[in-house]
């Protein structure tokens, strides 16, 4: 039942009829107990304003494309229940991610970060954890081969938006790329791990991080970029990874 009215305060870019960017209020009917923030944004588009530009595809936190800031915090609106962020009365502010160029309204251009991930040759798939352990014990029976799965990182760039260093230094590799570098060090697959470590230890790499841990706090997928940056520092200093941590992640 769409029993409540939610006022979205949405960031809008300039366009004919709107001289400068700014917030615009769009009221939508919602079911506070069942709807997600993305449901509300989609309804604002379908029923109130077809000119609203936002990204969405999978609706279950797998594709990463819908990331925005909800009341100032980076979130995937597709898995953010309204009930978790809205008291039923106040307005809900929807803004584009920070530290990335805005394409229009709340959609940003991920090209700079995706270009860096591509340059690292960061693979989209990884070996599943159970099989990493199996591979470490060659006595095991593995005639079925090692199972693979998509990486935890959704490339949603919430971490880049939350990072205080990225906001001051556009050349900083940033949490998503450094987390990918750590994954390559951990499981090189086809990438050149040595080159990647050199890059991570370079001028715009892990030593720029100020250990604010905002990236790890907002990651919707449990990647823990800050923890991985610390692991890269350890590897660069000692040539060895940090002591193994228990498998982290939204999955645990």
């Amino acid at each position: 039942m769409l029993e409540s009215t939610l006022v979205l305060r949405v960031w809008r870019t300039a366009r004919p009829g709107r001289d400068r960017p700014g917030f615009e209020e769009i009221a939508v009917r919602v079911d506070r107990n069942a709807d997600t923030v993305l449901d509300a944004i989609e309804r604002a588009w379908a029923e109130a304003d077809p000119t609203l530009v936002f990204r969405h595809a999978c609706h279950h936190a797998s594709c990463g494309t819908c990331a925005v800031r909800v009341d100032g915090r980076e979130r995937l609106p597709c898995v953010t229940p309204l009930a978790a962020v809205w008291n039923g009365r106040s307005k809900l502010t929807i803004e584009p991610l920070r530290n990335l160029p805005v394409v229009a309204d709340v959609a940003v251009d991920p090209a700079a970060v995706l270009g860096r991930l591509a340059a690292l040759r960061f693979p989209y798939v990884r070996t599943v954890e159970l099989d990493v352990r199996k591979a470490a014990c060659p006595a095991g029976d593995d005639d079925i081969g090692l199972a693979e799965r998509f990486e935890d990182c959704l490339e949603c760039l919430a971490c880049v938006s939350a990072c205080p260093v990225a906001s001051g230094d556009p050349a900083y590799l940033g949490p998503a790329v450094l987390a990918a570098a750590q994954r390559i060090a951990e499981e090189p697959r086809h990438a050149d791990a040595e080159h990647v470590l050199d890059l991570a230890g370079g001028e715009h790499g892990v030593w720029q991080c100020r250990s604010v841990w905002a990236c790890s706090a907002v990651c919707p997928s449990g990647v823990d970029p800050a923890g991985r940056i610390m692991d890269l520092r350890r590897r660069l200093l000692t040539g060895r990874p940090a002591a193994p941590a228990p498998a982290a992640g939204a999955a645990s």
Partner: protein
Amino acid sequence: MRHGLLDSARRNGGPPTAIVIGSGSTGAATAHDLALRGVAVTVVERGEIASGTTGRNHGLLHSGGRYAVKDPESARECIAERDILARIVPEILELNGGLFVAVDEAGLAYGEPFRQACAVVGIPTRDLSGAEARELEPALSERVLGAVEVPDGVFDPLHLCLAFLATATSSGARVLAHVEVEELVVRGATVEGVVVRDRQTGRRVRLEADVVVNAARPWADRIAAMAGLDVPLVPTAGVMVAVIGRTVDRVINRLDRPSDGDIVVPQRQTLLIGTSSWVVDDPDRIAIPADDVELMFERGGELVPGVRGRDPRGVFAAARPLIGRPGDLSAGRDLSRTFECFDHAAAGVEGFVTISGGKTTTARAMAEKAADVACAKLAVDAPCRTASTPLRSYREYYVA
């Protein structure tokens, strides 16, 4: 918005031009196919890439096993396309295989016709006892009596579309997102282009082309109606429930006739349980019945008991564009999952093609068929090369 450049190209001796409506897997693959054959392609998409049916997909890369018994044509298409995608876009696939598991005597009895049907269409199978299946996938129910292994897999729907489009743009295609088709340009009995509204500027823009391919999928009937045409379409939704906790690596299917809640698909750190089937009036407004969500936990739990009682991470549904007539059937499950390309010349309208039916696993084959029909109209005789052309990385879609 850049326009008018490609549109007048042919009159000046440039390449033939095509407009593809929709950037789901079908539209994206069709743009790629046409661009490889030297056609100057413009994709128009009313929202974002894959923001319709394809994005809200379970991501099950079908071996064809699901359709082998009742719909062998679809099954043949699936196994052929599964193997092609494994060659051209391995980057975004989890190729861990799948199990069809029997959890009751009826399922066991279904095993024999299932294996025979798979053999007929060329899907390789391996028989497993219940214990062998649980050794491969310890999270399976104790009630699993036996299983058949098939080469199912998992794909990432958004990134599949982006990979097709990245490759298409590298061949010269252009993609216009956030433009909605409001009219078909019809002169005499020929479709000569589209009028789109740019959602960012509010402006209406006329785009002309030698052929228009309608890959709007569950919205295809609305587009065809703009030329007074009718396409047989039954938009059929199905619910998917994502739960955190990836406890299986293979796709788990119930060994039986397709029914509600009979697939469990691993994806990243989650399992997706699906699906159900109901006909919707409006693909833009799909209300998910709470009972269907409950049913997914109940039925999915019979295969992988650990999913029961978990909080859903995401609940989603989109309309599949099945071929048929509303009212033919009460539900869409019995409609074939195969695809069809409608050359509207048969109804007296030239320059306009609709591709309908099918599924994301077979998007490349659907695109091949649509591009064959379009190229015949354009007098382009270049053969389809998509089955052997590796796709570019999805990241290149953004990093042009």
